């Protein structure tokens, strides 16, 4: 789950990382008042969950409270990088001497946290990574102990920072690691970490993403997680405990397990078909998951005339066939829609036999192999 800039900054503040004075607003009038209370030039920043908002006009400087109000009125309700802007962060404008980069994430190969620092931060950080990788320093962190003070000093000093900036940056990095750990994050990033003309270090932005599997430990965030998904069907997918992805073609696909779902999509493409969307339910299928998953695709087909056929692949490893077949039929009986259904029910011999028995005569086209099922779905969709 990705967090808004201001949410990340709240967490930074809790852990003693300096952030600019700022106020979250959702009307022009509030933006004006915020600028008055900050008492100097402000930056009006659109709060969206995607990157690149600066270049798209989502971050603007206001010289006066009146200007802050005008900018706010323009930004609120506007579509930015595919997201609707509902909230703005009005912040004091920093006097920037330098911008550095700081982040903590997971290193894939070692399976350990990795802390990353660059003396050159800002929007060009990825260019820096490609062209001057030596200007970026990183260090693996032992998750049993966290990032120790001296490790942070050693890391930050590799970026040639010295003196007070070195000490402040190292202590901020240690605190950033604590945010990363305490909030179960996949990524925690400050870009840029501004060094002001007075020599203060301030986190001018935040980029935080919490591990979805850990949301139960953060109930206040768990409550808002699903509503934060913008796309209606993706949100419905999340409510059903599944992953929905819209693709634009005419075959709606459901499968349990991400690898299996992707293999199916690849095969559809290889056979000349076009997947319209796919729903991945996770490996274990229960009656409930099956019902919600199939039900979702049936509702999607009902509302979207482009969908010509639904292809369901159920790999019953740990899922009893009776539950799977019953969940399937409950969905079909509940959401009435005239659309061809193709199903591939696979698993140990006894499971697949039983599932096919239960679904026989229901109008669902049952296939014995993945390839036959895909061929049939592609054939129907091409009609």
């Amino acid at each position: 789950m990705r967090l808004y800039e201001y949410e990340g900054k709240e967490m930074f503040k809790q852990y003693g990382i300096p952030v600019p004075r700022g106020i979250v607003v959702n009307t022009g009038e509030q933006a004006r008042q915020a600028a008055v209370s900050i008492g100097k030039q402000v930056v009006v920043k659109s709060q969206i969950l995607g990157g690149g908002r600066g270049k798209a006009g989502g971050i603007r400087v206001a010289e006066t409270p009146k200007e802050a109000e005008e900018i706010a009125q323009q930004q609120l309700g506007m579509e930015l990088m595919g997201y609707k802007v509902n909230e703005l962060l009005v912040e004091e404008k920093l006097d920037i001497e330098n911008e550095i980069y700081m982040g903590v994430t997971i290193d894939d190969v070692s399976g350990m946290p990795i802390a990353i620092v660059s003396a050159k931060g800002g929007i060009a950080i990825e260019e820096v990574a490609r062209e001057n990788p030596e200007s970026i320093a990183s260090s693996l962190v032992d998750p049993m102990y966290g990032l120790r003070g001296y490790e942070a000093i050693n890391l930050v000093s590799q970026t040639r920072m010295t003196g007070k900036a070195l000490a402040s940056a190292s202590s901020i990095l240690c605190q950033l690691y604590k945010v990363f750990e305490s909030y179960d994050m996949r990524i925690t990033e400050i870009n840029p970490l501004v060094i002001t003309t007075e020599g203060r270090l301030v986190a001018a932005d935040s980029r935080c993403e919490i591990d979805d599997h850990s949301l139960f430990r953060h109930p206040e965030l768990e409550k808002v997680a699903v509503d934060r998904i913008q796309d209606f069907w993706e949100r419905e997918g999340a409510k059903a405990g599944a992953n929905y992805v819209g693709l634009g073609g005419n075959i709606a696909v459901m499968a349990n397990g991400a690898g299996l779902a992707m293999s199916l999509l690849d095969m559809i493409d290889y056979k000349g078909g076009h997947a319209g969307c796919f729903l991945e339910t996770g490996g274990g299928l229960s009656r409930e998951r099956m019902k919600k998953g199939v039900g979702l695709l049936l509702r999607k087909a009902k509302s979207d005339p482009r969908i010509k056929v639904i292809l369901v692949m159920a790999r019953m490893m740990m899922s009893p066939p009776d539950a799977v077949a019953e969940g399937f039929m409950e969905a079909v009986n509940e959401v009435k829609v005239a659309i061809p259904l193709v199903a591939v029910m696979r698993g140990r011999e006894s499971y697949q036999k039983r599932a096919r028995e239960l679904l026989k005569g229901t109008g669902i086209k049952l296939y014995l192999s993945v390839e036959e099922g895909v061929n049939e779905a592609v054939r129907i969709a091409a009609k």
Partner: protein
Amino acid sequence: MAIFANKDTKVLVQGITGNFGAKQTELMLEYGTKIIAGVTPGKGGQKQFDIPVYDSVRQAVANHDIDASLIFVPAPFVQDAAFEAIDAGIPFMVILTDWVPLHDELRVKAYAKRSNTRYIGPNCPGMIIPGETSLGLISGSAVTPGSVGIVSRSGTLIDEVAQQLTEQGIGQSIIIGIGGDPVVGTRTVEVLQLLREDKQTEVVLIVGEIGGVMEEEVAEYIGDKKFTKPVAAFIAGRTAPRGKRMGHAGAIVMGDRGTTESKIGAFSRVGVPVAKTLSEIPSLLRGMI
């Protein structure tokens, strides 16, 4: 002996009385797995399918020689269960549970490394050595003994691939699902390092997918001539929509790796044939056996 386990491997099940653990224990017993003890805190002294249940791993270890522990406990308790097995000196674990919190996975990995405990998972189907033993969820009737070793990150996909091979008369030496999460106990390349010495395995099939750099690592290992058995591959996700970006940090760590193009390219450069579709895997392998 095959790698990780064989028909004599004595197994403990943590979470043996839960829905998930009990059902899978029953299926593994059917397959012939030597499950000799179980653990569920608060249910010590009871029996599950005639198997003694203990309150803690320590008590189980005091009463039995245990070679491997299978962890089926609910996600919030996985970290504790893994620490417990490691502290009790169990040398090999399979963590089957999915939705394990990421930072718990990081800690389990670090803790296991310290005591040299090998594990696979979490969020994995475990492994099966056809005709010998099953440590996990892979469908016993979908597999048959033979010479192909399969390694995959995906659970249901590896189960499907194994069944397709079985239906085409191609037997398997070991099928191992290492888990689909970002932090797993054993990476694909580490399984390959072990399969090098495995006499039953003559050909290896890597069932990979988009994301991460495991397949690139494997290709590098093969390119260094460290693995001389024939290898074939399949990569799922060629047409998957681009994943959401993981911020700059992700791009800095990963660079351009992780895409299907990167993986297929890496395999092609070291002469590993890549099946175009799921259904092409059996015929590709048939030509290599």
